[in-house]
């Protein structure tokens, strides 16, 4: 037990002396959480929509005013002589074309068609745009027609009634940052020992493999915990997240997750005694897999089924579920015990793999 602590202290001392590694631990995760959390929204506001009014009647101006009143759309008038496609080439996301007989048809009481050309290069924004426009037109119709609609929808938004992107993204990016930097430092440290040859000294010393590994893992768990502090501060202040229930599952899961990613880094570093190679593998496994397949940004259900099964092997996916539950849903132990056990399982698997490969090299003493 004492040797584990000594090993951990030695590892931490070496880390503190490496200035680049220190900057990576403290500065980079915060920068990434802030950047990605701020910019990875899908919701756009101030969508530029161009209106071409071929009619110019009071009724058409009323419709345009309805669009102008929306805060999500930014209406720009387009001269009648220019082609609507030009507007789309120049950066408008949609063109609303009000036909010549609009006012006349409204007065006559017949239904009037209005065309909306949408730039669908970004299919998600195109759907949002079409949805907003449809809502505005429905409201315009309802205001003009005193007849009651038979059925109305009352929509309740759960867990994030303010539809804040930050509350959803913040926890996800927190997990991404943890998944990347702790294993990176761990893999680097282990690979450096292998590259420099100092690992041979470990093999001939009397420290058994499991104590050496656990000491290293403990050191990087401390690093991970140190990372959590500025990250959680950022989450609570800038992202405006709060605990939605029992914080204990989150704390337990975080300790287990830091153990899991630390073990992953140590495992990679022991297996690949080459710094550049170790960085690549951690970047691939820690960052890319977690970024793409853990449900961090886009729902897992959208991943084609041929690839979706891989997400079951991504440890970040389970931790994200626990974190989201802790900050948004508040389900507590009942909703998260399975995920917490899985995280612990992954961590043990990585540790055992590292121990297996180290044990073979050790001299029996």
């Amino acid at each position, binding site marked *: 037990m004492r040797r584990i602590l000594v090993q951990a202290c030695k590892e931490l001392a070496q880390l503190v002396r490496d200035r680049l590694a220190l900057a990576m631990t403290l500065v980079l995760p915060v920068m990434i959480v802030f950047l990605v959390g701020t910019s990875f929204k899908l919701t756009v506001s*101030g969508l530029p929509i161009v209106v071409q009014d071929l009619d110019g009647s009071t009724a058409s101006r009323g419709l345009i005013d309805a669009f102008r009143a929306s805060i999500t759309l930014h209406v720009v008038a387009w001269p009648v002589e220019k082609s609507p496609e030009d507007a789309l080439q120049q950066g408008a996301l949609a063109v609303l074309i009000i036909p010549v007989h609009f006012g006349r048809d409204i007065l006559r009481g017949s239904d009037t068609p209005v065309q*909306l050309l949408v730039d669908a*290069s970004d299919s998600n924004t195109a759907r949002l745009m079409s949805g907003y426009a449809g809502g505005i037109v429905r409201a315009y119709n309802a205001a003009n027609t005193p007849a009651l609609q*038979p*059925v109305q929808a009352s929509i309740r938004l759960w867990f994030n009634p303010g539809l804040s992107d930050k509350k959803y993204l913040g926890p996800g990016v927190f997990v991404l940052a943890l998944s990347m930097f702790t294993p990176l430092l761990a893999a680097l440290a282990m690979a450096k020992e292998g590259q420099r040859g100092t690992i041979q000294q470990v093999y001939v010393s009397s420290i058994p493999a499991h104590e050496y590994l656990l000491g290293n893992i403990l050191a990087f768990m401390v690093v991970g915990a140190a990372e959590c502090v500025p990250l959680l501060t950022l989450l609570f202040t800038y992202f405006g997240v709060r605990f939605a229930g029992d914080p204990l599952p989150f704390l337990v899961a975080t300790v287990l997750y830091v153990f899991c990613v630390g073990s992953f880094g140590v495992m990679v570093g022991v297996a690949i005694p080459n710094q*550049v190679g170790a960085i690549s593998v951690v970047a691939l496994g820690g960052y890319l897999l977690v970024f793409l397949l853990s449900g961090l940004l886009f729902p897992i259900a959208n991943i084609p089924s041929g690839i979706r099964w891989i997400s079951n092997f991504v440890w970040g996916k389970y931790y994200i579920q626990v974190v989201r539950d802790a900050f948004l849903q508040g389900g507590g132990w009942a909703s998260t015990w399975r995920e917490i056990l899985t995280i612990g399982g992954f961590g043990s698997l990585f540790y055992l793999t590292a121990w297996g490969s180290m044990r073979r090299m050790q001299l029996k003493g």
Partner: protein
Amino acid sequence: MQGIGNTRFLALIRKEFSQIRRDRQVTLSLIVPPVLMVLLFGSVLNPTVSNLQLGVVDYSRTPESRELIATLSESESFEVAGNYLSTGQLGDEISHGNLEAGVVIPYEFGRDLQRGKPATVQFLLNAMDANTARIAQAYAENVIATYNSGLGNSGLNAVFKPIAAAGARHRSQVLLFPAFLFNPGLVASWFVVTGVFGMLCILNASIVSAAAMVKEREAGTFEQLMMSPAGTSSIIVAKIVPLFLLLCVMVVSAVALMRLVFHVPVRGGYLLVMLGAALCVLCGIGIGTFVATFTKTAAQAQLASFFVNPPLSTLSGALTPVQALPAWLRPLTNVNPIYHFGIIARGSMLRGSGLDTLWPHFLALLAFALVLVSLSVWRFRKQLS
């Protein structure tokens, strides 16, 4: 003098090519990343909202409510995942993540409709993911609107007409007809893949060029190069040329993948996109070379890229729309080559835009490339002299 200069330069280039051929890591990073990034990002990053798992609680159990449920399940937006007996049960399923949405039809639903009173149907949406919730909201309102217009066929509309103003005038409705241009199938991958293309050019180019520059430094052979008659600029440019050519091969394979796997159209012609990609690669090489002037080992160069790549990738509109960035961050996109190339790629490939609309972005890329490469050459010269 010119003849001697040329053979010297060509000799340097030949030496670089043979070094690269022997380095398996460089060739690997020219093949694996394009395939991985384009295929993975294009298929996985999909924000499309459809087939939302919907739970139904029908307290009414009348033909009208069953008609509503049928309308819901016929739409592509929702998939009826189960009928539940109480709102509490429904709520639990949503909390546990088994359902994404729920609909509760009240007991008086059928009765109210028969009597001509308006009825309210409650939708419960899991709004954790704001984007999905917004689109699901629009879908729900759409389905209700469809159901309302369908009621006309069942004669219930007649019941509602007397409530309208006593005047025989039928109030007209504005009918909105949306037409989706450039991507009528609303394929999500087209947006992602054109953005990833830019990320690929810059990130891969910067990593490969930084590694190439730093390797010379690590091995200590830069001093040997300095002792040769070649000038510093020609040494560095000679290093850049083979990388540039190999990265152009990567660009071609990326475009081939985009065409073959994702069927992305190339409406503006291949020439424009390739030209833009070549400029983008040059920018990436400039970034990598510049980073290499600050680092001494290959591992350090790789770690330095972790400082440079995230801001470049996120503040670029590559994977998410630029309009989603907060207003104070948006000016930063103008100094980001990935942003400019994203506009070139999407404008040219999807919208068929020509040089007349895209020239500012080409100019920006050219400017960045020139500035970065000159800065790196200047720094290297200062360090080595």
